[in-house]
């Protein structure tokens, strides 16, 4: 007690210590090891040795540019879809949910009670060639637009749909939180000042909900870009993402340096995308 009293300045650091310790043991140390591994060369048969093999990075970018671009594209489309789908839902729950709010939120989270793998496998059945979805699309003459070769499963559409579905709650929940905090009287004030409902939404509600939009898009986009389960189960070889390549490098080829360097390239790509995005919407929106 006496010690802390005398060194009051230390208190915030002491409070931070457990978190910092956690991060350094479980994030920084493995990350450092990964960086070390990414600069190794050799083979599993003869062992890997550290040789400053920067060529690994060049190889990763040169050989797998297609998969990197595809990952960013799929994750980007899925993020936009998730935003478009969950904004009205979150809006409705926040402003019209009333006493059902908690139950409705539970419905959004409910799929998360089932494991990721099972949720994704369910889409194999939903989108099956002989299933209801494909037959309906066929009747509506949309199969040619959304699918290819008369099917939806094992196409890009299925992969993007799977990612959108799997990450939807990460979008919906932050949106709900930021919408729920909006002071209703601000919207009333806008209408008192002769703003139409639509204009009040555009000028008041939407800007105030931007922190939720930013948080939601980041929480969706970042894990989606590294995902490989959806592409593996719902895609064809032509839809594989960079996560699939990293997985096969690590597990099948036992080429640990290649897998490590590709992970770093992915990290850098995501970081760059996020920075551009943050720049465009303004960083203060991140924190509200």
């Amino acid at each position, binding site marked *: 007690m006496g010690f802390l009293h005398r060194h009051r300045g230390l208190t915030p650091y002491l409070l931070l210590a457990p978190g910092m310790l956690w991060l350094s043991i479980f994030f920084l140390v493995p990350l450092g090891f990964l960086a070390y591994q990414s600069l190794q060369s050799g*083979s*599993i*048969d*003869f*062992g*890997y*040795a550290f040789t400053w093999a920067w060529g690994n990075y060049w190889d990763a970018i040169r*050989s797998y540019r*297609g*998969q990197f671009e595809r990952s960013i594209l799929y994750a980007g489309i899925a993020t936009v879809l998730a935003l478009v789908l969950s904004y009205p839902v979150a809006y409705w729950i926040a402003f019209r949910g009333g006493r059902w709010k908690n139950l409705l939120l539970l419905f959004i989270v409910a799929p998360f009670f089932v494991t990721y793998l099972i949720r994704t496998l369910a889409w*194999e*059945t939903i989108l*099956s*060639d*002989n299933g209801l979805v494909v037959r309906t699309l066929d009747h509506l003459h949309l199969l040619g637009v959304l699918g290819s*070769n*008369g*099917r939806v*499963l*094992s196409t890009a559409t299925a992969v993007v749909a799977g990612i959108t579905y799997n990450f939807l709650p990460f979008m919906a929940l932050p949106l709900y939180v930021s919408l729920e905090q909006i002071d209703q009287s601000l919207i009333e004030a806008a209408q008192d000042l002769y703003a139409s409902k639509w204009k009040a939404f555009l000028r008041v509600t939407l800007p105030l909900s931007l922190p939720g939009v930013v948080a939601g898009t980041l929480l969706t986009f970042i894990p989606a870009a590294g995902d490989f389960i959806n592409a593996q*189960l719902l*895609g*064809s*070889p*032509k839809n*594989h993402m960079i996560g*699939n*390549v990293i997985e*096969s*490098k*690590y*597990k*099948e*080829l*036992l*080429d640990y340096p290649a897998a490590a360097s590709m992970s770093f390239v992915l990290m850098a790509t995501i970081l760059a995308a996020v920075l551009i995005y943050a720049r465009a919407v303004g960083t203060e929106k991140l924190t509200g």
Partner: protein
Amino acid sequence: MTDQLTRRELLQRAAAGSAVLTLPGLLAACGGTSKAGAGSTTSHKLAKTLHFSNWTLYIDKKGNRHPSLDQFQKQFGVHVDYTEDINDNASFFSKIQPALSSGQSTGRDLIVMTDNSRYPSLLIKKGWAEKLDKSAIPNIKNLIPQQQHPNWDPNRDYSLPWQSGMTGIGYNEQLTEPVLSMGELLGNKKLKGKVGLLSEFADTLALVMAANGDDPSKVTDQTFNRAIATIKKAVNSGQVRQFYGNDYSGALAKGDLVATMAWSGDIVQLQADNKHLKWNLPDTGGDIWTDNMLIPKGGNVYTASVYMNFVYEPKIAAEIEDYVNYICPVTGAKQALEKIDPSVANNTLIFPTKKMLDNVHIIDATALNNEKYQTAWQNLISA
């Protein structure tokens, strides 16, 4: 540290450390820092527990019990800690690799890995597999002749087969005419987008090479490239829907696949639900693979060897076979099975005819460890 150590070096150092290959010798070989050898000993004393990792649904089962394991415990007083934690070779290897490469015990005495993956030969090459105690396995004489000298373990010093299976073509006879050749599977336009290939390098390569008129047991750059070109053409034309692991069975059952490369034992199990599923070796031949029991470094050699001897008893092998439905490597098991379950004993997918066995190839083990081939394959299946 053992990463840099070849098996020969390991053995040399072990021999230098001690006249016989005993625990201190092995520890000396590893630099003595590890607890790896804790359970590893050549002494002829049984451990209390045998830690056995196997694939799912790969041993006899009655309710929650495994009768053959109970019998082993009764006879030898060794409890078998049986875990079904192997789903595919690559994932399992990546699970045990960190322990093995840092010289620590994997916590397992017996594991089962497939010889058409690179891993069994890699385990031996890197000194990560223990030598069997053959003095404890007199029943090794019951190993069928075809299995006695695989080129990655010519004298069966490190491994014994658990089960084998064949890779061929499975199809749904309600949805297609019989598909009896790879040419038809990869070229028949009526099957477009409804054809599956296996993501397992060895299976797909062996069948395609045989169909190209090349020899899968001797892979050369030329024959390899020819096979890759054949597969690429089928993928680019949209004929091939996807490369599958075990999951092709669901797609075949649902009708998303009409014809696919398939493993014999899977089809036996799927036929129970859908008798319209058929399986054949392609006219140019299929391939045969074997799941092998191996003792990972640090495992209890004597106890694991005693267990291997136990399952090479024809009567025990027959009991396991009656449930597992793959191909049994034990001579005399068929005769023993005829007494308890003749329908299984007479199923040619479980006890193949000589004609079938003459029509299956074994993939070249050196090709499996060829980095260039492996990379080309992985790039093809995740284009």
